[in-house]
């Protein structure tokens, strides 16, 4: 018989100190990076078009508000409790710590629920996640921003950034195209961008109606209006995937190097942290290695666009 001093319950696995400490969920720094979100209040809702609204969120906790820093082009996971999460690109200025703006189209069940939410309601955000537009690298160069449709949403953060550091950049161009005039977003900011931020801007629609006095056609047509040295130019292209191909190949023909063109890819992210693999493109995570990719990488990714 064995000496039964050895009683396993006395040597309970729980009692033995573990090699690595189990994360303490009371400590916010360990919690935030995974599934604990920042609680936000919806402080304002601005209708932009029939389908899109601009949601202004304010992080409740003052400390968290200060901690939440992002770079232009990054996204966050917006949680509407009960309805789930959706990845949304951040549309506001990186220097604005008071509130975060998200331009959202009513598409899935999460965004539909958000559209029903009232001002003052509480939602949660996780993030920021992903890569950003290389604003520092672009300094001293021309910046060409090309947005199609909802692609203007991620474009606002670099626009704000450029406005904050306008002297660091040379000529800045914004080309914005939409399917129909009524789908043009942020029209109220056009003058501000032109006059205050000194952005040379032009718009175009695919299907004009009687109210439209501007140009109609493909967005690449707008490139004729501006002169710039392609070798000294960085480009950011945001819009539906079909747009990337023809805009980027056009820019390539103009002579902008492929590694100076940046696009933002969209996939359905579930975790945002490079675990669930739902947003894989080839062997790359859209949530970790993206959403901002240079065009050279995108060209080399299988099944990207």
């Amino acid at each position: 018989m064995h000496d039964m001093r050895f009683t396993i319950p006395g040597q309970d696995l729980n009692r033995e100190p573990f090699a690595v400490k189990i994360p303490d969920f009371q400590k916010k720094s360990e919690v935030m990076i995974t599934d604990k979100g920042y609680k936000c209040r919806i402080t304002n809702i601005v209708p932009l078009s029939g389908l899109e609204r601009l949601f202004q969120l304010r992080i409740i906790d003052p400390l968290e508000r200060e901690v939440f820093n992002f770079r232009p082009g990054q996204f966050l996971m917006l949680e509407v409790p009960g309805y789930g999460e959706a990845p949304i690109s951040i549309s506001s200025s990186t220097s604005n710590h008071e509130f975060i703006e998200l331009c959202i189209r009513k598409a899935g069940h999460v965004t539909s629920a958000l559209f029903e939410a009232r001002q003052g309601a509480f939602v949660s955000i996780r993030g920021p996640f992903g890569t950003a537009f290389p604003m520092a690298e672009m300094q001293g160069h021309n910046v060409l921003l090309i947005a199609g449709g909802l692609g203007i949403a991620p474009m606002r953060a670099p626009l704000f950034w450029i406005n904050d550091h306008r002297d660091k950049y040379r000529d800045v161009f914004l080309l914005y195209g939409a399917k129909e005039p009524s789908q043009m977003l942020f029209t109220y900011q056009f003058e501000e961008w032109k006059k205050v931020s000194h952005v040379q801007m032009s718009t175009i629609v695919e299907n004009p109606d009687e109210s439209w006095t501007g140009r109609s056609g493909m967005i690449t047509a707008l490139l004729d209006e501006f002169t710039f040295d392609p070798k000294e130019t960085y480009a950011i292209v945001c819009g539906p995937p079909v747009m990337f191909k023809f805009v980027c190949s056009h820019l390539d023909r103009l002579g902008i190097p492929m590694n100076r063109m940046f696009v933002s890819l969209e996939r359905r992210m579930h975790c945002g942290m490079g675990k669930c693999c739902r947003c894989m493109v080839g062997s790359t995570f859209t949530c970790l290695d993206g959403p901002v990719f240079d065009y050279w990488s995108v060209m080399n990714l299988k099944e990207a666009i």
Partner: protein
Amino acid sequence: MNHLGFEMEKVKIGSFDFTCCEGCQLQLANKESTLPDFLALLDIRNFREISSERLDDYDIALVEGSITRPDEIERLKAIRGKAKVLIAFGTCACFGGVNSLKNRIPQEEAIREVYDNKAVETMPSMKISDIVQVDYSIPGCPVSKDEVEQILVGIVTRSQVSLPTYPVCVDCKQQLNTCLFDLGELCLGPITRAGCNAVCTTGKTACLGCRGPAEELNMPAFLELIKEKGLSLEDLHEKLAFYNAFEPLATDET
């Protein structure tokens, strides 16, 4: 809940049965642990198994059973006219169910066999969507109370309402079950829509496909599997036809 600034309203619901065993409706009265919460979501206007109310104003109609008599068609159309949302409830409503077995023999023969030649008004069994538009389908023989709860909560809260797209194998493997093909049985699990938690296969009973086909079936590959395993194609036909939930196989395959 009102954390988004709006209150949820109870949904006015009616439940109706056609040719069926009413087992699916009875299922809703089960699962006592959540029954009070479940009932609290609903304003029951008409539901034989649960309430004595017989009211005519409802937003959601749960329709159980298949259609096998001309008068049922009229009744169903009237229900569709009143309901904002019509849910085909259970396998009979979604696919025709076991009742459809009689479609395979002449009606006279069926009447003679079952009713001993008594005058009975009957016609081939039809699924609900053959007659009226169906907004949601909840398959299952019987339905899974969990899934019904989830779908009705989804309708009440206007959150996501969906059925799994993948086949029963996913659920079955998660239960650590032994694959019934390894035990030499013919199981429809690989082609049947999941969501049942693989109850039958967990009980070592082959899946008969009561939840209908999973999305994007690879039927040629499944047939290949049946042949490869040396299982009977006749058995396969029987099983596929049992609930009338699958397209009959092309005749050249038989």
